């Protein structure tokens, strides 16, 4: 057994390295990912070891990154595209939605699109506009894409490798404000499946769902109310498209209450879809409506206001109180 204590960032770096060692067709593409190692240093040292043809410093054009990745995939490569910040994915949105997502269907399976789109997402880093967004719903809404979000170093290390090995295009969301969170990673372990949610804390009173950066927030909330004798079951969704809700349904049937937490605006966010499915499936078990905690329906605010915008421990607990009040 080989266990190392890694940050999420370093776990991603090691996972990328291992994927590149395992498959010579893996090509990393992005802005500043080569010599600089990426603005978050996720690709640090990889160009030095794998060369400029496999770790490509691209021109500054996100549509170009995704569009050329499509062509490379057609030629048998497995491109891993880094989008520098969430808000910069939109110039590539056309390629992702009209091409990457649809080419497998268009070709009736003759062309695979094993492309990974890595996006550092979410707020909490005091940044300027376009550096703190949560665009997952746009991609989860698009047939042909799969969307995952990691919350910890273990899932970061294994998830990036599983995503690269997977035959379908995957939007791989990295919780940028948690890049420096540490955990022990057993690099010889057998990883959990990529497209599976996970119960990360057992409880009986309310089922609370989160993914990416909000998992830590929700776990802190669960810890806080445990002192008051209230027991939250916390589920890390991990996969946003497809959703893996069977463990959620099982949990809600026991607790009768469900709260969904994400940074993205609540309107038509993942929470809306989850609330609908939980209601459809667990209607007679519910003691309260499924509640959502998320960003407000405003543009992501200036950094001095982001603490007001982002769900925090208190807002999670407020929703838990409301769920318990029914």
């Amino acid at each position, binding site marked *: 057994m080989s266990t190392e204590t890694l940050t999420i960032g370093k776990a991603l770096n090691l996972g990328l390295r291992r994927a590149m060692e395992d498959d010579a067709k893996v*090509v990393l593409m992005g802005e500043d990912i080569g010599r600089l190692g990426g603005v978050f240093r996720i690709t640090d040292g990889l160009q030095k070891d794998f060369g400029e*043809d496999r770790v490509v410093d*691209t*021109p500054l*054009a996100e*549509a*170009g990154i*995704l*569009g*050329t*990745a*499509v*062509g*490379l*995939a*057609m*030629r*048998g*490569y497995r*491109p891993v595209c880094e989008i520098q910040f969430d808000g910069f994915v939109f*110039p590539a949105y*056309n*390629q992702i939605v*009209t*091409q990457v997502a*649809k*080419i*497998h*269907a*268009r*070709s*009736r*399976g*003759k*062309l*695979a699109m*094993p492309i990974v789109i890595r996006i550092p997402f979410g707020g909490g880093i005091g940044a300027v506009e376009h550096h703190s967004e949560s665009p997952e719903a746009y991609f989860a809404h698009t*047939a*042909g894409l*799969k969307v995952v979000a990691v919350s910890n170093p273990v899932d970061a290390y294994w998830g990036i490798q599983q995503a690269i090995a*997977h*035959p*379908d295009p995957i939007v791989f969301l990295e919780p940028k404000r948690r890049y420096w969170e540490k955990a022990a990673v057993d690099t010889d372990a057998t990883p959990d499946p990529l*497209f599976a949610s996970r119960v990360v804390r057992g409880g009986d009173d309310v089922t609370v769902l989160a993914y990416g950066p909000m998992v830590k927030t929700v776990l802190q909330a669960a810890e806080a109310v445990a002192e008051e004798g209230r027991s939250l079951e916390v589920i890390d969704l991990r996969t946003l*498209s*497809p*959703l*893996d809700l069977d463990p959620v349904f099982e949990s809600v049937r026991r607790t009768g209450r469900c709260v969904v937490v994400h940074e993205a605006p609540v309107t038509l966010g993942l929470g809306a879809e989850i609330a609908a499915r939980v209601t459809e499936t667990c209607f007679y078990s519910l003691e309260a409506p499924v509640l959502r905690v998320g960003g407000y329906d405003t543009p992501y605010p200036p950094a001095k206001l982001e603490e007001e915008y982002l769900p925090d421990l208190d807002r999670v607990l407020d929703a838990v109180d409301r769920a318990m009040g029914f």
Partner: protein
Amino acid sequence: MSLSSVTTEVVDPIPGAEAPHLPQQPDLVQLLTPEGERVEHPEYSLSISDDELRGLYRDLVLVRRWDVEATALQRQGELGIWASLLGQEAAQIGAGRALQPDDMAFPTYREHGVAWTRGVDPLDVISLFRGVDNGGWDPVATHFNLYTVVIGAQTLHATGYAMGVQRDGAETAVLAFLGDGATSQGEVNESMIWAASFSAPVVFFCQNNQYAISVPLERQSRVPLYQRAAGFGFPGVRVDGNDVLAVLAVTRAALAAAREGQGPTFIEAFTYRMGAHTTSDDPTRYRLASELEEWKLRDPIARLKVHLSRSGIADHHFFDSVERAADELATRIRSGTVEMPDPPATAMFDSVYAEQTPHLAQQRAAFVAYHESFEGGER
């Protein structure tokens, strides 16, 4: 066929050929004039056998017949829409015949002529416009990508594919098709920046057919399109797009340069969309009939026919045999189209992913169960 007896026979001279032509553009590469006269160009020569010349003529006539038949089928309700290539046959056949078997082409949605040269069955192309498929053929086996409907998006795919070719160390070139309107797209400009930066073996083949649906070229560019290439740092050349020989020569040279590691070239094939943008379009709303008449004098097929006839390379027997082949093709297209079955309804669920998701499998099962709930198939 005895050729010696027909060396002076001229068949079907171009109607109105005595009328004055538009001024020649000195920067237009031409090897066959609109009047059917074979001319030389200082930079682009073409050595071509008589068989190949007859083959090009045959290609041009057959794809035009295919196109005419498809337009008729749309008018009769058999196709949802058709994007006609009328007038652009030489640009497409010349470019397509310049490709080597391992080269890869990335079309827009109008390159039926190139599809023809890649051995794609016309009925497979028709299947897209009939609405039974969003693709229709095997892009890997044919080395002809599926049609891309979002304007210009395929130029980036072509460039990325060319970057893969570089990594494979293959002697393969990539041909990216686009139209004059597409040159305004950001993605097309990005693709040229990428191709230049990585010296990718890709040739951009722009059919300037003068209109982006209704909007004339002047709204897309203040400079001739081929001159844009200089700004990206690679050669640009304008070729008479209605001259199949010049298109073949120029495209062959550009593809050869790409294979040899000299990087991209931009080819502007100067041509004209003689028909509507699609069968849903009405060009009388935005262009004058006199303009179309001028371009009819530059018809790509008529000029080659005159050349073949005057030079004795082909005679009536040959032209008649091509007409018969065209009739047979039209018949096959017509019957194949009207007999083309609809896809099974469940097909829409089956290729969304390489690895099907449980959610979509459930939706598919519910869809099947829903339809089976109607006795006797009645809803």
